[in-house]
């Protein structure tokens, strides 16, 4: 941990240097203090930079009870196959993602990982920038959530941690309810490159139930275009769902109260890419194979499910 502590100081210095350090860069008030704008940008920058030391095992441990209550009572979570995850060392956990901006699969799986391996095992989750800059961002960072980027993930894997990535991310969580049982990574194959670069195994993690926590209607691509959000705010989608308490929820920016759908998570066998595909695997081939394997697993989980929400 001492080494990590040294890392923090170095990273803080690095950040300061990258941000310019000098408050005059973005303006200062009459007393030479950084301006509000400067402080805002600094805060955003800080939240998006992966400082692995922000993960706080004691904090996680003390908050597991709340996660356990939510996962056990509200979502009746069931996680199978945790023993398939290598006992130690870096590993890339690749999951499908559901539930709009409130993603129960993350709550259930993060709890399962932390209780199964103990909070002592370093475990990071990659999340969209919007999540980390939101008010819950600082809370999540202590849980080990870092902004989704190749650099951040590499940093965590190189440090020997387990990393959870949802390649479909913000796209997949808003897929319409009638596509609930479909793996949709939208062609994002960066996770394959990440696993190859870092030389780590991939463990697919397939969950079901998250897309039953609301009625998801559309990604809202046309709506975003119609409202010119793509030009004004660079928003290519504006998802729409029917959920509590808003009823019609456009954008899902404030989240929603998820319906108590049963969440089942299945951990699959680890895949060593070079062992299976040779020294130079084709990224497209690996992507196609892994998404296909995960689709088969999701279809199997869907076949087990008798009723929506009830499970």
């Amino acid at each position, binding site marked *: 941990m001492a080494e990590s502590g040294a890392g923090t100081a170095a990273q803080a210095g690095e950040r300061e240097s990258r941000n310019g350090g000098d408050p005059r860069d973005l303006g200062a008030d009459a007393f030479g203090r950084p301006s509000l704008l400067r402080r805002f940008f600094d805060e955003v920058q800080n939240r998006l930079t992966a400082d692995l030391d922000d993960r706080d095992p*004691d904090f996680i*441990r*003390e*908050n*597991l*009870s*709340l996660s*356990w*209550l939510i*996962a*056990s*009572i509200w*979502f*009746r*979570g*069931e*996680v199978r196959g*945790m023993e398939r995850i290598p006992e130690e060392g870096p590993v890339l956990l690749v999951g499908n993602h559901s539930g709009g901006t409130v993603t129960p699969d993350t709550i*259930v799986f993060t*709890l*399962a990982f932390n*209780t*199964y391996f*103990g909070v*002592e095992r370093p475990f990071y989750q990659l999340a969209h920038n919007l999540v980390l800059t939101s008010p819950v961002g600082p809370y999540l960072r202590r849980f080990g959530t870092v902004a989704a980027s190749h650099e951040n993930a590499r940093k965590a894997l190189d440090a020997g941690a387990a990393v959870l990535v949802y390649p479909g991310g913000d796209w997949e969580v808003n897929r319409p309810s009638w596509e609930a049982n479909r793996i949709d990574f939208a062609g994002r194959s960066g996770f394959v490159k990440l696993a190859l670069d870092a030389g780590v195994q991939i463990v697919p993690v397939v969950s079901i139930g998250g897309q039953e926590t609301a009625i998801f209607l559309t990604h809202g691509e046309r709506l975003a275009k119609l409202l010119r959000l793509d030009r004004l705010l660079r928003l290519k989608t504006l998802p729409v769902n029917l959920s509590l308490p808003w009823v019609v929820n456009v954008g899902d920016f404030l989240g929603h109260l998820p319906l108590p759908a049963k969440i089942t998570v299945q951990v699959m066998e680890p895949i060593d890419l070079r062992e299976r595909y040779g020294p130079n695997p084709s990224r497209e081939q690996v992507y196609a194979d892994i998404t296909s394997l995960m689709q088969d697993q999701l279809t199997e989980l869907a076949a087990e499910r008798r009723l929506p929400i009830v499970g």
Partner: protein
Amino acid sequence: MRIEQKVTVDAPRRLVWDYVTEPANYPVFIEGLTRWDVAGDKHTGLGARYRMLIRVGAADVGGLIEIVEWQPEGDMAWSSVTGVDQRGRWRLRELGDGRTRVNFRFAYGVAGGGIPGLIAERVAAPSLSRRFRLSLLNLKRAVEEQAVAASA
């Protein structure tokens, strides 16, 4: 939170002691236990460590535990090293007619868990209590079968 279960076993204390101190038996007779692996070189006795997990609600909960008390054919107690705070104790007492009184105590919680921690402990209690009751019945059945086999 503390749970206590008792059972009377129609077998000598030594047989019960041998059964509850053998780590390989735990996944067999403890209901809901998903793991009870020896961690380290010591198989049993004071200082032996085990990595244990028990399914509670949505998660496998447990951690690394260590045997902290060892009075042969009497008491064996463990305490958590990592994971959820826990203490467990087997307390065996001879009843004089070849039978053995078995007490199992299990205390658990999360220091610093606050109100959610207190609620979680209470929510988990009925399910854990039921499992330990069944586990003691499993123990009774297994040891009594051994006793019959030994006397035959």
